[in-house]
């Protein structure tokens, strides 16, 4: 082949691929409009998908679980609250592989959290975890997840206590399951219990998103407890000085505090116009508090 022909051929090839690249961009833009439709799960019956998977059901379960994670992650990033497809994806994944513990555990979190953090369906989360317990009765951590949904999302402390107690009967369960059951039964929601549960999620989870969420809750719980303690000290201060303190430094000056307490980001707490201890308006923790309160 002559060199001129080769050059022409190379140019044509280059031009061809360049137009393909341009064309693909246009197609991507067109497809963007259809993205919502793509969220749909075409086959919603787990049993049907299992039958169609032949012998590859466990592999398909991994695919469906990955799809659920991707779906949840994408919605999270875009801040979209529409998560209707989450349940069918989790339902299919756990039907295809009934021992896929991770799908029950994280799935329950995804389902129970209020939008846009999750689907806001603790009832489905309970259904999923109970299905997991049925298929994996030896895995005591699922009882912890069940108790967690009852405790935080449904505020049903009786059932939360029962779940922890049931899980504690497993010989491999950690001793705190029994303690938690007794504590919730006696006190309902309390700082210690909430702190312990969020801390446990923070230390045991492998997912960065869940870890970040748990850390935010731990920081906020600590801040709430600090504010409660500051309110008590402000009451003491009022008894002696006849007025509520305006700054936390006044409590330290009065000898009621050794150091001025700060939140997780190093910002000192303040007293609002009613004299109640609150987060510093500059603190990033305030944003997190507002975020969680918005979806309560």
């Amino acid at each position, binding site marked *: 082949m002559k060199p001129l022909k080769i050059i022409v051929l190379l140019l044509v090839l280059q031009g061809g691929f360049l137009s393909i690249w341009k064309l693909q961009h246009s197609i991507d833009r067109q497809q963007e409009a259809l993205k919502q439709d793509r969220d749909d799960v075409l086959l919603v019956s787990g049993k049907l998908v299992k039958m169609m998977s*032949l*012998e590859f059901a*466990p*592999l398909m*379960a991994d695919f469906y679980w*990955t799809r659920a994670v*991707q779906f949840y992650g994408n919605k999270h990033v875009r801040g979209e609250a529409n998560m209707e497809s989450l349940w069918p994806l989790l339902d299919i994944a756990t039907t295809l592989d009934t021992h896929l513990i*991770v799908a029950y555990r994280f799935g329950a979190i995804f389902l129970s959290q209020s939008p846009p953090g999750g689907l806001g369906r603790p009832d489905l989360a309970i259904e999923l975890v109970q299905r997991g317990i049925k298929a994996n009765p030896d895995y005591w951590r699922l009882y912890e997840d069940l108790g967690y949904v009852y405790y935080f999302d449904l505020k049903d402390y009786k059932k939360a206590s029962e779940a922890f107690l049931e899980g504690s009967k497993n010989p491999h369960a950690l001793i705190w399951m029994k303690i938690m059951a007794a504590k919730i039964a006696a006190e309902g929601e309390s700082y210690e219990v909430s702190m312990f549960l969020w801390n446990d999620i923070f230390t045991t989870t*492998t997912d960065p998103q869940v870890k970040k969420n748990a850390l935010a809750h731990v920081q906020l719980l600590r801040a709430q407890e600090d504010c409660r303690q500051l309110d008590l000290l402000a009451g003491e201060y009022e008894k002696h000085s006849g007025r509520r303190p305006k700054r936390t430094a006044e409590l330290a000056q009065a000898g009621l505090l050794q150091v001025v307490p700060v939140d997780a980001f190093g910002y000192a707490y303040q007293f609002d116009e009613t004299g109640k201890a609150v987060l510093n308006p500059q603190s990033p923790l305030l944003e997190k508090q507002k975020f969680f309160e918005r979806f309560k």
Partner: protein
Amino acid sequence: MMRIGVVALNTFREAVRDRVLYNLVFFALVMMAASIIAGQISIGIEQNVIVTLGLSAISLIGLLIAVFIGVGLVSKEMEKRTLYALLAKPVRRWEFLLGKFGGLALTLAVNTAAMAVGLLLAIAYIQQPIERAVGTVLIAVYFIWLKLALVVALALLFSCFTTPLLAILFTGGLYITGLYVQELRDLPMQVMSPGMQAFAKWLSYLLPNFENFNIVALAAHGRHVSGALIAQNSLYTAVYCTIVLTGAALVFSRRNLK
């Protein structure tokens, strides 16, 4: 026995010469890609994906070899007319058939074992030290090989009396049906007539139950597999293969090769 061994060894050599084992490269690439990608796109199933993907790939690649080469074991020899030269020697037809079966079973054993090594390396890559019960993974690989041996026997049987294309369809069809034997047993028997009930029940035991060999989920989660199941599945395969190969030998011995 010696004659069967010679045929088997030659069948194995022929498979190697036909570059059947090249699929191992494909398998290695799949495992490498999965090991790297799995951890990036999902949560908590890195090991699961490696095990399920690895075992599924071993099964799928093995099935393709078992079906496509299995049906060609006899027909290719007839097509090339090498069968006539072979049968002119003191080799009985059933010995030829058994040798062919043994040769492909040996090829599949080598192929499956090599892929199992690749799978174990992939597991070791993402999990150091290996915590998961690797024993169950090896048992799952063994079960896949048992299943493949049964598929080879069926492919041989069909190839003895029909064309290669039909033999592929029959073997593939029977394999898929064999995956749903449990569903057949779960049919609502009470709404059927007594005759139909008996037929469905007998059919569910007559068909090869390929679900027996599927312990991929157990292997992925490191669950225990009882020794009794290993023994029973081995025996099931041995008995079933004996029946199928006997049938194949009967058909082949009566076949007019002129």
